[in-house]
């Protein structure tokens, strides 16, 4: 029997601790939209997305209302467009982005992901054309998110793609300079990208997935933070156990919402992403959880260990609560989207080097980081190479979402707006990596034994 305390625990989590479902993402395969005629292909893409996702937003809103749990985002992910557009007789892939944008707006979703290419081992024709179109696509659309997978544990790292992405990020920042490089906030470079990620900017619908599927990403840094406030000074064993129990409850709610959405939409349930996704709101920060463990400021010595514990406990707690777990699963550390990270970066304790170390033990990678506008394309590529190497060697997903903000320098603030938050421009090393990036070729896949 539910007790009064149970009921009001849940209500407090939602009202006071920012508990929410971060996203319901419908994955839609576009493989059956392939056509040699690009206009016909775009028409088929638009029709299929609108047909499948017609009721997505309404269903999400109904669930929100009936269960009393906020569902912050309703999103769509599609098959990587490089695969779909590859057979079209055109060299201009920007219209595909415009089509996705139009479909997303018709459906009323917050974002659509999948303007993507998988080039971890090399480029096919469609990949090259898609990469070339990314800066214009990001500049001309509002809701389209793009991702490029440049490496994997099995394939190694495609350093030609890494070099290209540095230039593409610079170009995107330039074309969207009026909005402080907002286009770069919708563009992410992956190593070991996953096929069922519900989170933007990196969501795409993998080729191994069903025709359409419902994936759900949960959130709740505020709930974990609140729970840890009750075990001040306790052993780490107690900290881990507390996080596990909290993550279990959060994920059970995510699983229930996912099952409900899947049932109402008549679309199979895919996965729940066991995520701790922060927002810029006070009390919804991953950094503050790490500080609650006893660190004066996030980014100081001990931060990597604290994050390792948090990330592992979230997964252990969540995994039993969900039928199928997937996506990126773990704690996210986007700088601009986390009030505590912003504060730590502003005071100089949290640096890119420390964030890189943190990405070895958490969910994704260098996320939503603003750097000076004069940062070279080669330096950005080198940052991507470092992150990809961490992902490749450790058999985990890593990513880079970095914004070289034109006209801004270290110490300036960049306003991204909404959930994207605001970020202080962080310093990068001045020493050049240009000759390293100029080499090109591939970094071979790493050994999977003799692990030390």
């Amino acid at each position, binding site marked *: 029997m539910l007790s009064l305390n149970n009921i009001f625990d849940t209500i407090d989590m939602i009202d006071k601790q920012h508990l929410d479902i971060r996203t319901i993402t419908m994955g839609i395969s576009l493989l059956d939209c392939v056509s040699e005629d690009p206009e016909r292909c775009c028409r088929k893409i638009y029709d299929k997305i609108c047909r499948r996702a017609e009721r997505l937003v309404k269903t999400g809103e109904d669930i929100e*209302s009936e269960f*009393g749990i906020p569902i912050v985002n309703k999103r769509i992910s599609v098959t990587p467009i490089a695969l779909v557009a590859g057979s079209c007789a055109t060299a201009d892939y920007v219209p595909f982005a415009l089509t996705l944008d139009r479909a997303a707006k018709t459906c009323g979703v917050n974002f659509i992901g999948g303007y993507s290419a998988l080039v971890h081992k090399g480029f096919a024709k469609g990949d090259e054309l898609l990469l070339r179109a990314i800066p214009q696509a990001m500049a001309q659309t509002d809701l389209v998110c793009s991702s490029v997978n440049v490496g994997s544990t099995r394939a190694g790292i495609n350093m030609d793609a890494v070099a290209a992405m540095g230039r593409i990020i610079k170009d995107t920042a330039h074309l969207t300079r009026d909005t402080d490089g907002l286009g770069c906030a919708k563009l992410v470079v992956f190593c070991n990208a996953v096929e069922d990620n519900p989170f933007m900017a990196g969501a795409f619908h993998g080729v191994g997935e069903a025709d359409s599927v419902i994936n759900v990403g949960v959130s709740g840094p505020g709930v974990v933070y609140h729970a840890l406030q009750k075990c001040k000074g306790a052993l780490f064993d107690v900290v881990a156990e507390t996080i596990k129990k909290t993550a279990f409850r959060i994920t059970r709610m995510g699983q*229930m919402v996912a099952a409900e959405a899947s049932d109402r939409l008549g679309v199979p349930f895919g996965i729940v992403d066991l995520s701790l996704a922060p927002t810029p709101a006070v009390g919804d920060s991953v950094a503050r959880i790490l500080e609650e463990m006893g660190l004066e400021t996030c980014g100081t010595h001990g931060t990597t260990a604290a994050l390792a514990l948090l990330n592992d406990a979230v997964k252990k707690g969540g995994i039993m609560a969900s039928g199928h777990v997937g996506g990126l699963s773990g704690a996210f550390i986007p700088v601009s989207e986390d009030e505590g990270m912003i504060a730590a970066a502003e005071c100089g304790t949290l640096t890119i080097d420390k964030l890189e170390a943190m990405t070895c033990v958490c969910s994704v990678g260098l996320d939503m980081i603003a750097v000076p506008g004069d940062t070279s394309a080669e330096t950005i590529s080198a940052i991507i190479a470092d992150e990809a190497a961490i992902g490749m060697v450790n058999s985990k997903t890593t990513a880079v979402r970095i914004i070289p903000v034109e006209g801004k320098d270290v110490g300036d603030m960049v306003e991204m707006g909404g959930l994207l938050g605001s970020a202080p421009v962080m310093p990068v090393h001045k020493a050049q990596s240009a000759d390293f990036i100029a080499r090109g070729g591939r970094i071979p896949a790493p050994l999977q034994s003799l692990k030390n």
Partner: protein
Amino acid sequence: MKAIVTVVGKDQVGIIAGVCNTLADHNINVLDISQTIMEGFFTMMMVVDLALCTESFANLQNVLKTFGEGRGLSIRIQREDIFDAMHKL
């Protein structure tokens, strides 16, 4: 379908009577009530059965919300499943 009605606000005469009457007006059966004063506030939860209720869930939410607003009470109704998911194995 079962739902949970929660009421929080300043204690006053007739809260339970008023909420129960409103529910009865819509053919909603009360299965369980638990109530206390928490940090000085009247705090109540009711398990209700909506099987015979003809009103839509959204309208019902509005009716209860409006009833509460006139009396300085926060009243909400949510499907029971969310609480079950979080607190029962």
